[in-house]
């Protein structure tokens, strides 16, 4: 099966001198408009920010390991949790997931590139410079405590904490501008996704034949187009407040602090679906391959995805139950939040249905997506608990909430990302990641993750608030915090092994070939890595599994459509 393969370019091309070759290749990447190169830069930059955000988290856990610890001072602690949250959402989750979308969408729908390749490059560089602008605050920004103050207002930047009165200097302005710039990048990428999926599909690739991931990315792109502009608008208002003396959010001058919360969470809740839906896509691609079955209930999966997209726009005030919105609004947003568990539950059961009766192969990607389903269910259940208004009154702003959203964002999104990295690494580089090291990564991450985040539910239920930099001895929180902190080095070991795995496999990993997993979607029909033009001949397809049809001409899927 060597259909549409381009030349294999594993060996470096001979060049004039090592130095000349180095700068040449830097230039090649810097000016590239190839969706695959941009995607790898997205994912690489996202992984670097992942390490930075992880180090910030590690410092927080070190500080909280014991009562009355003094590793970092309170001001630094505020900066740590602000930068950790902002980094993980905007500079890790978004770019890695959009990066995978960039890599996979054209290959999966049988196109030679994205609809607007130059816009694509523009979006990537906006993201990078937005991220660098945010991190420049560590050296360049002024704050209450002098120069070199990173933003310290929380990733949600609640008013009036962000007003000139309470946030001196310009660290909050760095937060606004950095996120705004990288937000523009996300929006251009979303436009590209929609145009590519709607206009660039190969002959025969009807919408209902697209790989699930393309559907997920389509819905995500629409959510980006609805949600990110709201954040941009709110940030523009905040910028006017801070620099021009406007009165949007300052309660002392008839502004409304609650308005910021509404605008921020109208962005913020779709944002968590922007972060989880692509991971749903990874699961929906990886699970069928390693169960050796078609995905269970494809049309329902599509409907559930679109349903989640719509409902996610109507649940934002469940972040605001303790504000005092009144019983009517509280009930409404509680009810819509319960409602969203229906399409999500459909997905969970469809994945279980995919595994049911399949010939399961527990390779590393499969381990990660199986872990994803289990951990996401736990995070979803605590989500249902938190959708119950009186429970939120009790648990809001406690470590229970921290535990909840790390179960969906780490146990969900990050596990999905690792599964995807192991699954598509051979396509992008031509070499497989090492399975033995991969299994070490999975089990260390899984155990470390559970050690860190499971006890947070207990310490939260015992009343430990979020965002405190230390606590007293007699609260009964010590053991749970200690266990949480012990989980950190375990996770770090897992990530370190992963990085070693990448470095090692790039040089001497097993050569993958076009289709190492015997999969069914179009990206596996071209060479690994694919040529710049993706396909020598634009493929055609007659079913949702074009590669199955080619491998089994005697029993093509088209017979069952």
């Amino acid at each position, binding site marked *: 099966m060597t*259909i549409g393969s381009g030349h294999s370019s594993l060996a470096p091309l001979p060049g004039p001198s090592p130095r000349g070759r180095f700068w040449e290749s830097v230039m090649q990447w810097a000016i590239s408009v190839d969706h695959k190169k941009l995607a790898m830069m997205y994912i690489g930059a996202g992984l670097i920010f992942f390490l930075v955000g992880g180090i910030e988290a590690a410092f927080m856990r070190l500080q909280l390991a014991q009562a009355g610890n003094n590793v970092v001072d309170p001001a630094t602690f505020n900066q740590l949790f602000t930068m950790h949250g902002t980094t993980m959402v905007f500079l890790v989750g978004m770019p890695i997931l959009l990066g995978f979308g960039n890599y996979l969408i054209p290959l999966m729908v049988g196109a030679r590139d994205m*609809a*607007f390749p130059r816009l694509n490059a523009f979006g990537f560089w906006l993201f990078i410079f937005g991220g660098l602008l945010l991190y420049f605050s560590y050296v360049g920004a002024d704050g209450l405590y002098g120069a070199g103050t990173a933003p310290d207002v929380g990733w949600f930047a609640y008013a009036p904490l962000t007003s000139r009165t309470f946030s001196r200097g310009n660290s909050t302005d760095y937060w606004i501008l950095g996120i705004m710039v990288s937000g523009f990048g996300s*929006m251009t990428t*979303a*436009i*590209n996704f*929609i*145009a590519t999926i*709607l*206009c*660039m599909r190969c*002959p*025969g690739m*009807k919408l209902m034949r697209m790989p699930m991931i393309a559907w997920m990315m389509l819905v995500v792109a629409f959510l980006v*187009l*609805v*949600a*990110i*502009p*709201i954040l*941009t*608008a*709110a940030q*523009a*208002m905040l910028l*006017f407040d801070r620099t*021009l*003396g*406007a*009165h*949007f959010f300052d309660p002392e*001058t*008839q*502004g*409304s602090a609650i*308005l910021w919360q509404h*605008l921020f969470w*109208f962005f913020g809740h779709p944002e968590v679906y922007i972060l989880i839906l692509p991971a749903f896509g990874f699961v929906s691609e990886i699970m069928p391959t390693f169960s050796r079955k078609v995905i269970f209930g494809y049309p329902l999966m599509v409907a559930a995805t679109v349903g989640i997209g719509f409902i996610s726009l109507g649940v934002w005030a469940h972040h605001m139950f303790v504000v005092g919105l009144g019983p009517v609004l509280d009930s409404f947003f509680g009810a819509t939040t319960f409602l969203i568990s229906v399409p999500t539950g459909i997905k969970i059961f469809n994945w279980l249905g995919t595994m049911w009766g399949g010939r399961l192969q527990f390779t590393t990607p499969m381990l990660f997506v199986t872990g994803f389903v289990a951990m996401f269910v736990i995070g979803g259940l605590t989500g249902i608990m938190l959708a119950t208004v009186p429970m939120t009154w009790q648990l809001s702003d406690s470590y229970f909430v921290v535990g909840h959203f790390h179960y969906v964002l780490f146990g969900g999104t990050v596990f999905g990302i690792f599964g995807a990295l192991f699954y598509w690494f051979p396509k992008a580089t031509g070499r497989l990641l090492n399975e033995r090291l991969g299994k070490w990564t999975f089990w260390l991450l899984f155990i470390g993750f559970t050690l860190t985040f499971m006890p947070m539910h207990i310490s939260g239920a015992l009343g430990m608030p979020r965002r405190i930099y230390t606590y007293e001895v007699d609260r009964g929180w010590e053991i749970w915090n200690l266990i949480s902190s012990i989980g950190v080095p375990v996770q770090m070991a897992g990530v370190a092994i992963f990085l070693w795995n990448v470095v090692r496999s790039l040089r001497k990993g097993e050569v993958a070939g076009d289709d190492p997993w015997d999969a069914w979607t179009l990206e596996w029909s071209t060479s690994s890595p694919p040529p710049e033009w993706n396909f020598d001949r634009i*493929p*055609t*397809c*007659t079913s949702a599994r074009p590669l199955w*049809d*080619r491998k089994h*001409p005697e029993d*093509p899927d*088209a017979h069952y*459509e």
Partner: protein
Amino acid sequence: MTALNATTSNVRLTAPLSRAKVGMACLIFMESAFFSAFLVTYLYYIGKSPDGPQPLECLELNLVLINSVCLLSSSITVVLAVRSLARGAMGAFRLWLAVTILLGLEFLLGTGYEWWGLIEDKGLTIQSNAFGTNFYSLVGFHAFHVLIGLILLIGVFILSLFGFINPARDHQRVDVATWYWHFVDVVWILVFTLVYIVGRVPQGAPA
């Protein structure tokens, strides 16, 4: 392999949608979300400025009505320009495009003149109160988008002067560019209604 090459009946070979149209539609969708945040915020703050200049005493309709007529009629002239281009009548195309640009310029200059009066005579600034904050933000962001649309149209105009616009090849591209101009007009209808009609209620009687 045979399944690949066989042209089966359920393989459609035509591209259904134009990338440019989908891209522009997405941009407009995104901008609508952006403006909806400012519109809702404006609505929320109507009647919530106890001190400082009030909408009823600051905003006068005569100048803004002229501006609105200019901006809205520019939507018609830009349609005439695109139709001329589709016919291949380059002279008429340039004429109507120039009229559109002039009408857009009138709107921007008129808005600037109105703001000058508000700042100098009425003492309304972005710092005055919630009304000033919202008025300058919403109307200002709209004017900023008119400016973007104008730059787009002026770009097309300059290209046509140097003969880079080929009617057969480009009339659909120019058409897509003018979608943005229509969008800016539609936003103005909402802004005008909210600011100059709904928003000019007397103090103490929120709409």
